[in-house]
C-alpha cells in the first residue's frame, strides 16, 4: 500500500524530470517538442489522479483505529510505511509516507486541480517557446505538494514545503524578460522563505521534545505545554508565510505576475492551502496550545477584513481574486482557531475548487480581452457564454449564495466561529460577518463590471513579449473550456456532499450570513445601476486609495526591512574594504613605514656607523660585566 502512495508522489516527479530533460531528444520541430511535453505533463498527472481515487476507495474500506478525527468514519483506513531511517547523531530523520483520511482528502483536491491546470495550460500557452519547462515545473510542484500531503515525517514535509516555494518562484518568474515578474518571483520566494525559517525552528522544537521527527511520535509524545506553545507559534510563522496570512501576505498579490493557470493551481488551491493543511495535520498539538489558537484567530480576523476591503478597491481582476484568496484563507484559519478543523478542511476543499475555477475563467477573460484590468472589460456576457456561466457559479460560491458549495462551507466556518470559545471570539465573529458582506460586494462588483455594462472591446496594441497573446473574438479553444466546466461541477455540488461528510447546516447563522452577503451585493448593484461606467468601489470614498494599496503594508515593509538591509549591505562592503581589509593592508604599510624610519640612520656617514658600533660594544661589555 505504501508503494501506491510513493507512486502517487513520484509519478509527477518523474514527469518533471522527463519534461525537463527529454522533450528535445530527437525532436525536429517545436510542435513535436510541444506535444511531447504536453504528454509528459498530463499522462503521469492523470495516472496519479487515478491512483489517488483508488487509494481513497481502499481507505474507505480499510479498518483502522479511529482516532476520533473528523474524517475517521468516512475514511477510517490508515497507511504508513518507513523507507529508511537516517541517523543524524541526535534526532533521527525517518523517510516515511503516511496516507490517512485527511491527506487523501487534500490529495484529491491537489491532483484534480493540477490535472485541470495542466490541460488548461496546453491551450493557454499555445506557442509559448518555454512551455516544456513550464509544464515540467508544474509537475514538480504537484509532486512537492503531494509530498507535503503524504509526508509522515516533519523533515520530509519540510523538504516538500520548500520545493513548493522554489516551484512557485520559477513559475511566477516564467516570463522573466520583464524584470517586474522576476522581482515578484524573488519577493514571493523570500517572504515564504522567511516564514519557512520559523517553520524549521518549530520542527526542531517538536523533534527535540519528541525525540523523533515522525508525526506519530510528535503527536503521541507528551510535550510540556510551554514547549508546545513555542513550537506551534514558530510553526505559525511558516503557515503565515505559505498561506499568505497577515504578517507575510504581501507576496500573494504580486505573485499574480505569473501565468493565470499558475495562479489557479498554486496561489488559489494548493500551495496557499498547505499552511492550513499542516495545522490540521498537527491539530492535536495546536489544540493543546490555546494561546497559539488565539493568536491565529486574531491574525485571521485582521487578515479577513483587510484583504476583503483591498479586493473591493482593486482594478486588476487577478489581484481581486488574490486578495479574495487571502480573505478566504483567513476564514479557514479562523475556523481552525475556533476549534473546528472539520469546517476548515471542508472550506479548504470547496474554496480550492471554486477559486481555481474563478482563476481559470479569469484566464479565459484575460485571454479574450488581452488585459487584466476590469476597466478594460464589459459586456462579455454575449461574447463568452460558457465562461460567463462558469464564472457566475464561481462568484456565487465565493459570495456564499445557496446552491453553490461556498454557501455550505462558509456557513460551517461561521457556525464554528460562533461556537468558538476563547477571549477574541466576539471580535473574530464580528469581523467574519463584516467580511461576508464585503465579499458579497466585491464578488458582485467584479461580476457586473466584467460581464455587464457597455462592451469596451477596441483593438488593443500587440502585447509585449511577456503577456499571453489575444484570440480574435472567438472564445477560447475547448481544451481550455473543459477544465473550467469540470471544476464548475464541484464548485456547485460539493456543498450538497457536506451533510454526507457529517457537516450539518445550521440554518440560523446561514440565514444571517446570506442576508449580509445579499446586502453587500445589493448596495454594489444599486451603485452600478446608477452609473454603469463608473466603478462601484467609489462607495469606499476616501478609503479607496489605501484599500487599493493594501494599506501601504508593502511600502512599510520596504521602508522598514528592504531598504535598511540594502543600506546595511553596502555599509558592510565598505566596512569590509576599509576596516577589515584596511587592517590587513595597514599592517603591511606599517612595516614599510617602520623600515623607512630605520633607513633614515643610513646617511652614508661611516663615522656615525663606527660610533654606533663602539657604543654598542661598550654597552655589551657593561652588560656582560654587570649581569654575569
Amino acid at each position, binding site marked *: 500500500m505504501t508503494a501506491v502512495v510513493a507512486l502517487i508522489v513520484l509519478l509527477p516527479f518523474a514527469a518533471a524530470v522527463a519534461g525537463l*530533460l527529454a522533450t528535445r531528444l530527437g525532436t525536429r520541430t517545436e510542435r513535436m517538442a510541444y506535444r511531447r511535453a504536453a504528454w509528459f505533463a498530463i499522462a503521469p498527472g492523470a495516472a496519479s489522479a487515478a491512483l489517488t481515487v483508488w487509494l481513497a476507495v481502499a481507505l474507505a474500506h480499510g479498518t483502522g483505529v479511529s482516532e476520533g478525527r473528523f474524517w475517521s468514519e468516512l475514511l477510517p483506513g490508515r497507511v504508513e510505511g518507513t523507507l529508511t531511517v537516517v541517523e*543524524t547523531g541526535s534526532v533521527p530523520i525517518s523517510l516515511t509516507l503516511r496516507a490517512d483520511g485527511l491527506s487523501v482528502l487534500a490529495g484529491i483536491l491537489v491532483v484534480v486541480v493540477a490535472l485541470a491546470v495542466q490541460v488548461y495550460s496546453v491551450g493557454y500557452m499555445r506557442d509559448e517557446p518555454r512551455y516544456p519547462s513550464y509544464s515540467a515545473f508544474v509537475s514538480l510542484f504537484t509532486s512537492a505538494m503531494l509530498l507535503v500531503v503524504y509526508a509522515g515525517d516533519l523533515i520530509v514535509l519540510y523538504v516538500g514545503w520548500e520545493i513548493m516555494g522554489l516551484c512557485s518562484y520559477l513559475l511566477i518568474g516564467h516570463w522573466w524578460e520583464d524584470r517586474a515578474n522576476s522581482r515578484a518571483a524573488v519577493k514571493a520566494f523570500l517572504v515564504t522563505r522567511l516564514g519557512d525559517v520559523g517553520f524549521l525552528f518549530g520542527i526542531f522544537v517538536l523533534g527535540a521534545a519528541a525525540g523523533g521527527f515522525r508525526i506519530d511520535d510528535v503527536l503521541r509524545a507528551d510535550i510540556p505545554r510551554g514547549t508546545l506553545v513555542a513550537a506551534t507559534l514558530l510553526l505559525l510563522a511558516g503557515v503565515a508565510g505559505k498561506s499568505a496570512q497577515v504578517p507575510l501576505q504581501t507576496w500573494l498579490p504580486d505573485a499574480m505576475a505569473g501565468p493565470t493557470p499558475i495562479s489557479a493551481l498554486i496561489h488559489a488551491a494548493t500551495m496557499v492551502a498547505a499552511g492550513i493543511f499542516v495545522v490540521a495535520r498537527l491539530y492535536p498539538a495546536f489544540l493543546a496550545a490555546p494561546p497559539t489558537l488565539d493568536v491565529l484567530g486574531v491574525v485571521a480576523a485582521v487578515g479577513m477584513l483587510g484583504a476583503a476591503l483591498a479586493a473591493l478597491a482593486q482594478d486588476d481582476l487577478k489581484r481581486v481574486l488574490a486578495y479574495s484568496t487571502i480573505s478566504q484563507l483567513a476564514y479557514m484559519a479562523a475556523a481552525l482557531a475556533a476549534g473546528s478543523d472539520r469546517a476548515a478542511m471542508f472550506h479548504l476543499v470547496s474554496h480550492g475548487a471554486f477559486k481555481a475555477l474563478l482563476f481559470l475563467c479569469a484566464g479565459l477573460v484575460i485571454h479574450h480581452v488581452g488585459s487584466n484590468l476590469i476597466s478594460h472589460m464589459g459586456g462579455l456576457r454575449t461574447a463568452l457564454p460558457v465562461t460567463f456561466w462558469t464564472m457566475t457559479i464561481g462568484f456565487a460560491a465565493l459570495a456564499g449564495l445557496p446552491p453553490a458549495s461556498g454557501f455550505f462551507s462558509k456557513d460551517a466556518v461561521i457556525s464554528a466561529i460562533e461556537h468558538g470559545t476563547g477571549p477574541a471570539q466576539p471580535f473574530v465573529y464580528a469581523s467574519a460577518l463584516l467580511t461576508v458582506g464585503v465579499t458579497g460586494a466585491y464578488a458582485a462588483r467584479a461580476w457586473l463590471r466584467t460581464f455587464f455594462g457597455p462592451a469596451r472591446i477596441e483593438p488593443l496594441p500587440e502585447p509585449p513579449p511577456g503577456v499571453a497573446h489575444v484570440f480574435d473574438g472567438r472564445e477560447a479553444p475547448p481544451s481550455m473550456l473543459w477544465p473550467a466546466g469540470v471544476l464548475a461541477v464541484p464548485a456547485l455540488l460539493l456543498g450538497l456532499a457536506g451533510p454526507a461528510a457529517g457537516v450539518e447546516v445550521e440554518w440560523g447563522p446561514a440565514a444571517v450570513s446570506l442576508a449580509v452577503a445579499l446586502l453587500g451585493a445589493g448596495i454594489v448593484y444599486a451603485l452600478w445601476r446608477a452609473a454603469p461606467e463608473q466603478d462601484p468601489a467609489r462607495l469606499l470614498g476616501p478609503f479607496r486609495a489605501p484599500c487599493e494599496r493594501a494599506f501601504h503594508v508593502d511600502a512599510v515593509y520596504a521602508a522598514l526591512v528592504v531598504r535598511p538591509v540594502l543600506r546595511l549591505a553596502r555599509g558592510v562592503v565598505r566596512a569590509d574594504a576599509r576596516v577589515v581589509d584596511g587592517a590587513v593592508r595597514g599592517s603591511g604599510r606599517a612595516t614599510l613605514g617602520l623600515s623607512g624610519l630605520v633607513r633614515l640612520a643610513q646617511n652614508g656617514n661611516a663615522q656615525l656607523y663606527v660610533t654606533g658600533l663602539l657604543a654598542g660594544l661598550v654597552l655589551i661589555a657593561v652588560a656582560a660585566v654587570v649581569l654575569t
Partner: protein
Amino acid sequence: MSWLPIALVAVPLLGAVVSAVPAVRDRAVAWGIAVSGVVLVLAVALAAVFDHARPAGMQLQTDRPWIPGLGLRFHLGVDGVSLPLVVLTALLTFLCFVHLAGHPPAGGRPAALVVTLLVLEVGMIGTFLALDLLLFFVFFEVVLVPMYFVIALWGGAGRRAAAVKFILYTLLGSAVLLIGLLVVRTQAGTLDMVALAGRHGSGMARSAQILAFLAIGLGLAVKTPMWPLHTWLPDAHTEAPTVGSVLLAGVLLKMGSYGFARIAIPVLPEGAAALAPWLGAFAVAGIAYGSLACLAQRDLKRMIAYSSVGHMGFVLLGFASLTPVGLNGALFANVAHGLITGLLFFLAGAVKERYGTADMVRLGGGMLRRLPYIGSLLTFACVASLGLPGLAGFWGEMLALLGAFSPAAGLSRPLFLVFMAVGGLGTVLTAAYFLGMLSRVTHGRVVENVPAGPLEPPGPPVATAEGVREVLSEAGEGAEPVEPVATGAAVAALDREWAEQEIARASAVAADEGEAGATGAARAHGPGVADAAEVGRGRRPFGDVTVHELAAWLPLVALIVLFGLWPKALLAVTTPAVQSLLGSGVAP
C-alpha cells in the same frame, strides 16, 4: 590494502615529476587527465574497500618512522571523517583537468599549470590522509606554494597583489598553527592523532588545552576562513583562474574545517568547550556578514567568494556546538559546499570567459536567452547553494542549526539559540542575494550584443537609452552608473542578429549532449553546442556549453542531487566516526 593511501599520495607526485619530461610536456593536459583519473580510481577503490560496517575506526593505516631524530612518523590512514573529503578532492581535481582540456588557461604555459595542479593534489590528499600532527602540517603547507603560483601566474589583472596577500596571510596562520601543534606535542608527548584523539585530552592541563586550541583554532580559522580573518579570500578568488578558484573553494577551505574535526575538537576537548562560544559567535558573524557583503557585490566571482565565507560560517557553527549532530552537519556542509561552490566557480569562469567580464552590471541581463544552458545551470547551482531541501546544500545547514539548537552540555543554551536564529536569518539573506543575482544576470532582456572577449578591450559603449536605463535602474541606487560593455545596436537590431546566430548554431546540433542541465529553466533554444571553428578567431566562441564543460559539470550536478535526495549516503559514514571523536558513543 594499506598501500592505497600511500599510492594516493605518490601517484600525483610521480605524475608531476614525469610531466616535466619534454615528451610528456607537449601533451601535458592529456597527461594530467590520465594521472588525476588514476587518482580518482584509487580514491573510489579506497571508498569501496573501506569497511562501512565500522567507519569510526581508523583503517588502512601505514605507520613508518619518517624522521627518527624528531620522532616524526609517516602515518597515513582514513576513517569516516576523511573518506568523503579524499574522494571529493580526487573528483574535483579530475574535473578540473577535464575542464582544462577544453579551455586552455588564459596565461598560457599549460604544462606548468599541470605540474602545479598535480603538486597541489598531493598536498590536498596528503592533508586528509595524514595522522601525524607534523605530517599534517607539512601537507598543509605544501598546498600553499602551488596555489600561490596558480594565482600569481594564471590569474586576472590584480593577481600579484592577491597572490602575495593570500600566501602571507595563510603563512601567518600556519605559523600560529605550528605553535599550537608544538604545544600539544610538548604537553601530550606524542604527535600521533589517533592516540591523542583516543585520550580525549586527558593528561593535558586545562589552560594548556585552551592555549593550544586558541593557536590551532586561529591557524585553521584563517584557512576556513572565519569572519574577521577572511579578507584574503575574495581577492584570491577574483584573481584566480577558473581551475584555481574551483580547487581553492572546493578543497582548500575544507582543509581548514577538517583540521577542526580531526585535531582541534577531539584532541583538546576542554579547550574546545572553553572557546566554543567565541567560535560560534564568529561563525554566526561570518554568516550574516558574508550574506550582507554578497548583497552589495558587483563582481560575480567576488560574490561567490563571500558566499563561501557565509557557508563556512555554517560549518564553524556546526563545530562550535560540539555535538555529534553539529559535527555531522559541519562535515556534510563541507562536502556539499565543495561540490556546489565548485560548480558555481566553473560557471562563473565560463561566464567571465564568454562575456570578458564578471561585473554583474556590465553583464547586462538576459543570460537565459543568450546562453540557455549556462543560465539554467547557474540557476540550479544558485538554488542548490541557497540551501534548498532536496539538494545537497540543505542538509549540512539544517544539521548545523539542529546542533546549535541543542549544544553540548557545558555550553550556554540561550546563546546558541541566538546563534541558531541569526543562522536562520542568514539563510534568508543567502536566498536574497542569490536570487537577486539571478534576477540581475539571467533574467531581463539582453542589453549588449557583442561581448568584449578578454583579449580585446571593451568597445566604445554606444548605449541605447532604454538599455542603459534598465541596467542602471537594475544596478540599484548605490552602484555608480557604469556603461554596459559594448552595448552596440538597439535591441531590435539585436534580435535580428541573435536570430542569425541561432540558425548558424542550430545546424551544429550535437546529438550526444542534447540533454540539458538538470532542473534548470528555459530549454528555449536548440541544443546550441559551440563548434570549435570559432575558437580559431582567437576569441572564445559566444556559443553555449562546450563538451568539456558539460563533462566537467554534470558529475557535480548529479552528486548534488544524489546527496540532496539521499543524505544517508554521507551520514552513514560520518555519524559513527563523529560520535567516536567526541567520545560520546551515545547521542547527548
